[in-house]
């Protein structure tokens, strides 16, 4: 393979060329209620060539390595059609390495019938909670990937990745009222993450039933305390995406707005990307341009100090590459993405401290998803409770929060000391590439004047 790829990388006539070849094997089992919905084995093989000429990019993806040289030619031809300037890529030492996952329990050593059995058990846990549970969904998959990467700077990386994902969802119904709750786990090293989840799943299902009798939240502006899981998604949506420099490098208005040194929040606010978290889908040794991943401060003591880069965005902004160019798979070119993003904890603030002076507010737990436009962002809380007179009070439902990066970060007035990396990973979407595995975490924190949609 290495010879084949290196041979294709010769005599290309471009400023830069890279080739990625990928093989995958995926097993998936899903249940709807007590019934098996599908069980499948998917094999994938494909690759791509990406070329730069005079600052323009050409990209070709395919499912066969036949005539690889012609594919390089086509990518170079497309890049020539596009390029009218100068190719700029931040220099990095070309890496030659072999990357293998450090596995605790390999999903490939577990029989399909055992996986199916566990999926069935989790479905039963939810369905046995009573007739208010209308149905449930359980999805399990494990994917093994082998990726070869080479570029004309001399990089050669041969890596293997494993990814186990298990998700469960309970749907409760009373008349026309339908409520749902979910819980999921993921790991790049351990099938065990999917085992012994009965108790978690039971609690999640019970909460779905409780939601049927919970009132809908009233719309308006609230003091909101977010839990560590939602705090992580906050770091990702509220600030992480805005830090992705590919949207910034050639946009002067944006560069002026996101100038290093700009204050976004109080001295207690620190947001980082690139944490080395065992088992997280966002943990990378190298990104998909062969650049070593390093931890990056985005906000330090409330001030913008860094951003996430590809080799191109780093060169164009005169900054160091950070190893954040990632591709969902061989059918896409790498673009700037997050890895493991988090809000750093404070030293001494507890949840109790934070609650104590809230007369009326919301306590929100985990998220069903969020979206950002750069300036504006939203999250949907998975579960939520009113805070009354300093105490967590009754459950409410339908809590979707929105914020504005230029005011909401300033409105964080208290950050807890209790960071937790959730067992669930996230799937992030950008430029049609979804779901890309990412991790996120944070401590409890409190936001003043947060807008919540509702009745």
């Amino acid at each position, binding site marked *: 393979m290495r010879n084949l790829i290196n041979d294709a990388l010769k005599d290309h006539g471009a400023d830069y060329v890279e080739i990625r070849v990928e093989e995958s094997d995926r097993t998936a089992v899903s249940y*709807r*209620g007590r019934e*098996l*919905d*599908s*069980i*499948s*084995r*998917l*094999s994938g*093989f*494909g690759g791509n060539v990406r070329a730069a000429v005079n600052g*323009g*990019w*050409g*990209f*070709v*993806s395919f*499912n066969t390595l*036949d005539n690889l040289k012609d594919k390089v030619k*086509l*990518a170079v031809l*497309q890049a020539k*059609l*596009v390029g009218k300037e100068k190719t700029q890529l931040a220099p990095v030492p070309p890496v030659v390495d072999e990357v293998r996952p450090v596995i605790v329990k390999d999903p490939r050593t577990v029989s399909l*019938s055992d996986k199916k059995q566990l999926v069935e058990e989790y479905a039963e846990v939810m369905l046995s909670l009573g007739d208010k549970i*209308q149905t449930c969904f359980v999805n399990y998959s494990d994917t093994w990937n082998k990726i070869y990467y080479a570029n004309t700077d001399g990089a050669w990386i041969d890596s293997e990745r494993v990814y186990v994902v298990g998700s469960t969802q309970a*749907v409760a*119904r009373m008349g*026309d009222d*339908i*409520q*749902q709750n979910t819980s999921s786990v993921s790991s790049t090293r351990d099938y065990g993450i999917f085992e012994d989840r009965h108790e978690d799943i039971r609690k999640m299902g019970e909460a779905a039933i409780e939601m049927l009798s919970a009132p809908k939240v009233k*719309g308006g*502006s609230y003091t909101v305390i977010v839990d560590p899981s939602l705090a992580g998604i906050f770091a990702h949506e509220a600030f992480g995406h805005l830090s992705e420099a590919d949207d910034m490098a050639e946009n002067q*208005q944006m560069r002026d*707005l996101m100038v290093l040194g700009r204050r976004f929040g109080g001295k207690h606010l620190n947001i980082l990307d690139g944490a080395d978290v065992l088992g997280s889908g966002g943990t990378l040794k190298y990104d998909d341009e062969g650049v070593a991943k390093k931890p990056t401060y985005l906000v330090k003591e409330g001030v913008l100090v860094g951003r996430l880069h590809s080799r191109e965005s780093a060169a164009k902004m005169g900054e160091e590459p950070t190893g954040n160019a990632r591709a969902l798979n061989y*059918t896409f*070119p790498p673009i700037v993405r997050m890895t493991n993003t988090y809000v750093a904890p404070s030293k001494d603030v507890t949840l109790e401290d934070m609650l104590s002076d809230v007369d009326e507010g919301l306590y929100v737990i985990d998220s*069903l*998803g*969020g*979206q*950002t*436009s*750069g*300036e*504006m*962002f*939203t*999250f*949907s809380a998975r579960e939520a409770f009113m805070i009354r007179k300093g105490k967590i009070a009754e459950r409410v*439902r*339908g809590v*979707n929060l929105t914020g*504005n990066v230029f005011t909401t970060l300033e409105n964080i007035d208290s950050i807890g000391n209790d960071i937790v990396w959730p067992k669930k990973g996230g799937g992030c979407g950008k430029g049609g590439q979804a779901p890309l595995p990412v991790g996120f975490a944070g401590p409890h924190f409190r936001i003043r004047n947060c*807008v*919540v949609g*509702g*009745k």
Partner: protein
Amino acid sequence: MINKILEMAARVAQDAEVFEVMSEETPVEFENNKLKSASTRSIKGYALRIIKDGKIGFSSTTKPDGAADLVEHAVETAQFGQEANFELPSQPAALPSVKVYDEEVAKISVEQLVETGQAVLDGIRQAEPGAQVAVGIEKAYGTHRLVNTKGLDVESKGTYYGIGASLELIQGTDMLQIWDGLDSRSKFDIIEVINAVKEKAARGKNIVPIDTRTMPVIFTPKGFEMTLSLPFYIAFSGKEVLQGVTPVSDKLGKQAMDPRISIYDDGIIDYSTASRPFDDEGLPTNRMPLIENGVVKNFIYDLATAAKAGAKPTGNGQRGLGSLPNPGYNGMVIQAGDTALEDIIKGVEYGLLVDQTLGAWAGNARGGDFSGNVHYGLKIENGELVGRVKDVMVAGNVFEGLKNIGTIENVSHRQSGGRWIPHILFSGLSVATR
């Protein structure tokens, strides 16, 4: 290879079906006011479904030499597979003569895509020289072929042409962001896309405050698609209905919405993006009412779901390479009403027109709830659009809202993905701000 796979599978299983996908996509991207990249994405792969000892096995591959593994994996999964309670279909007597292939699209060159994309960029930049504009333009063509051991052998060749454009204008810390786009199986006039972005930019510069309260809200076709459509798509899927997890699951033949609401699943509109002569299991597509005059008429089914539900399959089997067929829409048409948009706006004393939302999909879509940030919305005062709102959430329940709507526009506009939607006024939705 497709016949070889079918032969190999037929030797080890009672029945088998092979689905072949081949496509070539050519996207060209402009970012920050200039050309950025040109790509060619070729995809070729096979999915195999077998019925062995009464059970379903499923596998797929994009390996050029993957036939033997494909069959082996299908056999492996069939040991644990669900009961096959349906038969694979035989060759259909006739297929609808819907047009899904346009030679004009198939022969567009990369150079022409670059030229057209540049024209879209220039058209928008002319009106908004201070803005950052991005344009994506893509053409694609491909074939779907399906063969099975019941003698079915159908093939369809289709084309795709799509243009998306977005604009960003930063003033202070305000980011005005607009996007619009269209797609079709044939070529269309780029002026539609240019004008949509230009008009929204012109109206969006002035920011106005709005109150937290219940008010009339008009959803544009795009606003409807981004904010309200997901609950709808879930609700009429036979798979959801079978399990009783949609608010309309027990309302077949009953009045569930305002009598002015009629919605169709329509796979036979010529050149509409989601149109196709047969579904992904080889059954002919059609035009079928989901809701007619507010009465629930049909749900959509694939073969397996229909068999479980004791319903007839509706030609809505849909799948990618990596999944078994599921119920999926062949396009969606919301029937137009009787009032011009201008007159709908004139009739609103204090309200909101919603075009782009963020995150409204996240939450309890299955129950019909939505709650999203109004990313591009205009305040209406005394029948006039007076300016853009910010830091605003709009929330409600789609099914509650559709029981008692205000007005439907007299035109149903083509949207991306083969959807046709008019502007719709909801008489009272909750709007919240700081």
